[in-house]
């Protein structure tokens, strides 16, 4: 186990639900309650120093009935050059704290995860639809959403929302 994983497991112990290493990608799973705390630690701790959020994405796993949604953050450190994937499992309609306060770049990522999967974020400055039109109904990246879509679109007219 690398120094990186040692630092994280030492700090959180049993709150790291699962660790993985597939094809050299280090992965940890945490509970949604620990999401913000673990990511804050990852950014600020001297042994981890993840200064950039490479991406944050939602996922839908309908076969996992207890918690069918997932949120995945890919972190990268320019100091050490290492990468880490942090995952959490969510139920339908469950919200996690936004990480836009840690990395402003998470803004679009979280908006995308919200509009595509319906994953909520508390404390997000402007959680509105990003890639689809504002009157779009449903969450298109969910597995039960038909590939060919359901509705047409309309151009957004309200420009006053704060991003």
């Amino acid at each position: 186990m690398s120094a990186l994983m040692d630092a994280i497991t030492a700090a959180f112990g049993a709150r790291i639900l699962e660790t993985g290493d597939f094809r050299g990608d280090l992965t940890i799973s945490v509970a949604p309650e620990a999401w913000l705390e673990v990511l804050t630690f990852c950014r600020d701790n001297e042994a981890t120093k993840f200064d950039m959020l490479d991406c944050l994405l939602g996922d839908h796993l309908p076969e996992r009935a207890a918690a069918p949604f997932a949120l995945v953050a890919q972190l990268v450190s320019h100091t050490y050059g290492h990468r880490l994937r942090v995952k959490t499992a969510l139920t339908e309609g469950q919200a996690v704290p936004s990480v836009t306060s840690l990395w402003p770049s998470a803004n679009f990522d979280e908006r995308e995860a919200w509009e595509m999967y319906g994953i909520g974020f508390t404390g997000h400055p402007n959680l509105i639809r990003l890639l689809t039109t504002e009157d779009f109904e449903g969450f298109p990246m969910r597995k039960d959403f038909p590939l060919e879509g359901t509705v047409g679109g309309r151009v957004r007219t309200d420009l006053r929302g704060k991003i």
Partner: protein
Amino acid sequence: MSADPHTDTHGAAVDTHGHDSHGHDAHGNGCAPAGPKRPTTEELIARKAATRQEIEPGADLMTISIGPQHPSTHGVYRIVLDLDGEIIVDGRPEVGNLHRGIEKLCENRTYHQIVPLTDRLDYIASFAMNHGFCEAAEKLMGLEVPDRGRYIRTIAHELARLSNHILWLGIHVMDLGTQTFFCICFRDREYILDLWEMLCGARLTHSFARIGGVAKDLPDGFEYRCRKVMEFLPKRVAEYERIVKNNRIYYKRAKGVGVFTAEDCYAWRVTGPPLRSAGIARDLRKDEPYAAYGEVDFDVAVEYNADVYDRFLVRMKEIRESCKIILQCLDQMPDGDFISKDAGHVLPRKSEVMRQSGAMIQDFNQVFRGPQAPKGEVYRAIEVPKGEMGVYIRSEGGGKPARVRFTTPSFYHGQALPALAKGEMIADMVAIFASIDVVLGDCDR
């Protein structure tokens, strides 16, 4: 147009390090070590404060919408700006006009069928997108690419970088007021596109990478023509620099504008040339080598002033380095297969499919069932012309991925524009937006 930038005093921030100190520097190789004075982060922040205008609190703001149909937005990007006079107070980008649901489509296609979809992400450098996806899929499947395939990929990726940077330069300078230069850049990009036409028949959406290698071997005569182009392109870069680098109008519009320090870049996930112009030698080709980048000798282009002008310098250096890389790859080109022979994951050569029963079965399997990937998830990031592009794949096993996410640089660069442009004049927004190189196909996916 033989202005000496030394006489220029754009804001309080004029510091000319070695590159732009003399009007006759255009013949230099462009990759000389930087001059004696490199600004620290504190100096950059001070400069940023000096060039940016004070915004009166409580001022009466005017809201205007730029785009989605505006020439300076390079596609269908829209930004709603709050202006105090001509100063940008805040901005709200709106993207999604080009959203095609590529990630949703990926979940319903086999891995081989996804490769042409990736062309439509960044259509200016489509091979780079093919390459990123194939690297990720190979990581998931544990495939090794043969040496010749790796070298051909490296050449193809650098051709994509060349065509991207030359096109970028033409459009960027056109945004700042010159039309003729755009045609000069298109003339030279044509040579790259001709090479592409030889390589795979297509000029824009190449689909040239395959899982396990590339689609075709180098055609006869390619090496000769490629060498010719790579030998004269650096001379053309010198010509670009004679036209642009010491042009007083360009210098005044670009120098000290849109300062974005390395910390800002990390916070907003701005990567690639904008990050390297802030003094960070971060390049995944060096830091996490893939294809044949570990076996060729090249320098990471770095500049230190973090403004629009230095992003231009970084890209000019990268064109020269790309030419170097391609020439080295041609010199060192190994013999052997250009695509892996792993029958479980790779499409067979078309010439064999109609003649050998084994290849025909393999073709049938690959086309209808797809390559059988193990269960698991991977993330692979590579350096594409615009920045760092990552591909996340989650597989449940079988021939189709369960989730694909393309982490594309333009998505984050487009998002960061208000942060870059805050406090600048509205006319500078055009220069800043062009300097971070956004393509909306890449942004909206």
